[in-house]
């Protein structure tokens, strides 16, 4: 039926959602190497101030700012977004709803290549005169609005351009996800028979779509300030710096859930398969996520409690912030309850999925200290906040992605990843991550504020330098632990044990397609008869029951 595809159209300019998904994942992992390298550079500086860093040299103060800025930007927009939402979303969503491809395959290809160009644009900003932007990933004006303040020439506009392209790419993905989910579901795939990942990816796309607009406007205004000194954010010209903060966080906070939700979806799929248990309270989870999605538009100013906003509006924002913990508490409790009465198999994927819950809980509860207005006066912009969001984002981005990769690798490449090496990778990663981030809570409480390139310059922080050293050594181990993963990934692609169609005995539709699925995904159009979590049904022989199996 289809004409023979050349290598170029099959693997590079492909319209197949599976290839696009894998492209996103691989580019995201490559960008993670850049982000990790930057983390290595500035963590080395923090532990051993002003020493020559192996593989970099001496890090000056302004380059330190660039390094932290680019680390944040890359990890959020070029690692988390592409891997979790676009990568897994593109690969899994059509398969899970039983579609042959995305609704708009060409748009899908375009979205990846726009993303690719955005990544190149961002990377190129390292090499322009005066280097990459150093205004923080939040790019607050006037620092970022007036080139005179930053000492950054081309870095700042390039940063905005790159982010704008990235947003465009993600919007295209979002349009595809939503349309595919609505119109291309297999026969019998009602909304409440969709796997949680599909729900989560769609809610995340919706949240992104509604929240990013004002920031796109704000970014363009910032660009106008940088290039033409119009002054939207410059007080001397009648503008207001606080406006940008509002526009940024109106997007920035929902963005956190754009990352969290797909991760929760991935974890849900994995823990149900490996505990041979149904998810606990499927609809309850969906409704709490929807509530959280709406609430996420009401909390943005909690990032600005001490930023000069009217202090009287802090109280309502503090309340909504604390309230948003409830739907996520429900979700987390439901995930834990899903293990109740199960038969837990500790495969590498399951270990990563569980470690995501274990570590995310600490990130979650410490958020209350930042959300409560009074304690945030102290905690704001200290390492406590840094530790808090790394304890949420590290599990969301890395632990979940690893879980997902180990889990779906047999589907994607038709071969297993090596479990022994996987477990070595898991234990070192999960444990060393705590050595990296746990000390940061303590230095933060001790009063170490963010983005200073040498804490030992401050009298009250001199005694806590050893905590920075522990954190940095933890990071060395954490980065080192990724070597077995990378080798495992590429070697298993060609040499791994061959996988059958449904090696984990899972229910969702992607496991009913061949491994790897060919163009068009399914051999026969799937017809769905049940929800995806019928594990260990009573009075059946096998302990799983694919969605395609008639009742």
């Amino acid at each position, binding site marked *: 039926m289809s004409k023979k595809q050349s290598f170029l159209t099959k693997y590079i300019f492909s319209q197949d959602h599976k290839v696009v998904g894998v492209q996103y994942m691989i580019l995201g992992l490559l960008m993670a190497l850049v982000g990790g390298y930057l983390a290595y550079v500035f963590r080395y500086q923090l532990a051993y101030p002003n020493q020559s860093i192996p593989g970099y040299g001496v890090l000056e103060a302004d380059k330190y700012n660039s390094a932290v800025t680019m680390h944040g930007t890359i990890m959020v927009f070029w690692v988390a977004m592409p891997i979790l939402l676009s990568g897994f979303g593109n690969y899994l969503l059509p398969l899970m709803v039983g579609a042959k491809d995305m609704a708009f395959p060409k748009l899908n290809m375009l979205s990846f290549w726009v993303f690719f160009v955005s990544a190149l644009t961002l990377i190129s900003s390292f090499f322009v005169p005066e280097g990459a932007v150093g205004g923080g990933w939040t790019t607050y004006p006037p620092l970022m609005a007036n080139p005179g303040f930053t000492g950054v020439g081309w870095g700042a506009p390039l940063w905005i351009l790159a982010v704008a392209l990235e947003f465009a790419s993600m919007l295209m993905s979002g349009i595809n996800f939503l349309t595919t989910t609505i119109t291309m579901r297999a026969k019998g795939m009602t909304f409440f028979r969709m796997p949680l990942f599909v729900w989560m990816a769609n809610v995340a796309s919706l949240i992104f*779509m*509604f*929240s990013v*607009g*004002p920031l796109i406007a704000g970014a363009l205004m910032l660009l106008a300030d940088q290039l033409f000194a119009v002054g939207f954010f410059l007080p001397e010209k009648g503008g*207001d710096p*606080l*406006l940008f903060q*509002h*526009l940024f966080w*109106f997007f920035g906070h929902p963005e956190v859930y754009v990352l969290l939700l797909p991760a929760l979806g991935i974890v849900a799929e994995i823990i149900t398969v490996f505990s041979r248990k149904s998810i606990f309270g499927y609809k309850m989870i969906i409704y709490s996520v929807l509530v959280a999605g709406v609430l996420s*538009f*009401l909390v*943005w*100013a909690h990032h600005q409690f001490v930023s000069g*906003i*009217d*202090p*009287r*509006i802090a109280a309502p924002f503090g309340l909504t912030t604390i309230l948003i913990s409830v739907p996520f508490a429900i979700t987390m409790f439901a995930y834990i309850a899903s293990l109740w009465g199960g038969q837990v198999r500790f495969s590498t994927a399951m270990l990563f999925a569980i470690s995501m819950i274990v570590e995310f809980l600490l990130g979650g509860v410490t958020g209350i200290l930042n959300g409560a207005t009074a304690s945030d006066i102290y905690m704001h912009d200290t390492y406590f906040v840094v530790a808090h969001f790394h304890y949420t984002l590290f599990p969301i981005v890395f632990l979940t992605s690893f879980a997902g990769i180990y889990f779906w690798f047999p589907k994607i490449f038709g071969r297993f990843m090596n479990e022994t090496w996987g477990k070595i990778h898991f234990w070192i990663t999960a444990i060393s991550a705590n050595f990296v981030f746990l000390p940061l809570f303590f230095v933060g409480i001790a009063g170490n504020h963010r983005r200073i390139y040498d804490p030992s310059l401050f009298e009250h922080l001199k005694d806590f330098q050893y905590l920075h050293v522990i954190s940095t050594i933890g990071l060395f181990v954490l980065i080192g632990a990724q070597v077995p993963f990378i080798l495992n990934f590429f070697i298993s692609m060609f040499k791994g044990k061959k996988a059958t169609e449904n090696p984990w005995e899972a229910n969702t539709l992607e496991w009913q397609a061949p491994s790897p699925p060919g163009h068009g995904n399914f051999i026969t159009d799937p017809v769905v008869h049940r929800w995806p979590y019928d594990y260990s049904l009573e009075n059946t022989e096998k302990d799983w029951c694919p969605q395609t199996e008639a009742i």
Partner: protein
Amino acid sequence: MKSVEHHSISFYITIWVILMVAIGASVYLGSIQHAHLATLLIFSVATVKAILVANYYMGLSHEPKYITLMLLVGVLFIGLLFVGLIPDIVYIYGK
């Protein structure tokens, strides 16, 4: 399958005529003296125009109500942003 709803050409032209009249009304209202009333009326007229365009030209009137709802949710969130910004942008605390 339900067929796409069709309005006649004369229907579309009628809408256009109403829109033209509305433009005239806006321009006239821009010149009257009573500022608050003028503002209110001008934006009411604009909203009427917007509803006409959205409903009959964009075709929202014969789309499922979910689509209108979705767009309204977007507008609602922007409304939240607007309200949240009033204390900081319109009034400056402590000034």
